């Protein structure tokens, strides 16, 4: 039961570089999410996806790009990394829309440092 796996778990990159964080889930959940977690801000939604080829912005989407060509994968790309994007990134999935009260299952996180 692999659940959600994120890679890389830890990454150090330089300002201006492009970085892609990978997320893979084995449950065939329709919904997938990317959150970032920073001290003092808690978890903030970056992007989410309701199904393959359907994505939408969350609270803090600027500087990020997502795609969902397959149900099980939801990569997050930082087009030109900035120091303010140093954070812990969590991918998550849900069986259906959270409006029905469905819970979210989180990956273990990707620690990204931009120097």
């Amino acid at each position, binding site marked *: 039961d692999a659940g959600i796996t994120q890679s890389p778990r830890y990454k150090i990159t330089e300002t201006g570089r492009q970085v892609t964080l990978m997320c893979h889930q084995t449950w065939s959940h329709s919904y997938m999410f990317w959150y970032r977690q920073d001290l003092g801000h*808690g978890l903030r*939604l970056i992007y*989410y996806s309701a199904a393959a080829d359907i994505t939408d912005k969350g609270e803090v989407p600027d500087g990020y790009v997502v795609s969902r060509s397959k149900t099980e994968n939801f990569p997050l790309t930082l087009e030109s990394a900035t120091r303010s994007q140093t954070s812990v990134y969590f991918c998550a999935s849900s069986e259906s829309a959270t409006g029905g009260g469905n*819970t979210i*299952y989180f990956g273990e*996180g990707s620690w990204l440092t931009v120097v």
Partner: protein
Amino acid sequence: SQKIEQNSEALNIQEGKTATLTCNYTNYSPAYLQWYRQDPGRGPVFLLLIRENEKEKRKERLKVTFDTTLKQSLFHITASQPADSATYLCALRTGRRALTFGSGTRLQVQP
């Protein structure tokens, strides 16, 4: 502005006591509220969901209350143990098809 507020200060209690954590929200009328546990270096894990028409929900040593008039949820852990030490997050749907989370309260249970 819309907010979900949890006490940012850590809660320190003695083993065996009841821990009570608070989640307050403004400007929302959520159909439900969820509580998650997060251990250091790990992703959050779902604990309990309580719906707007439920005043109280229990699961083993956990109890959640939901007061839609006060716009507040209380999360209780009875007979607390050191293994309960973690950060606890509340979450609710705030319009988009995703959950919005509070910043969490860290609980430390002393043996």
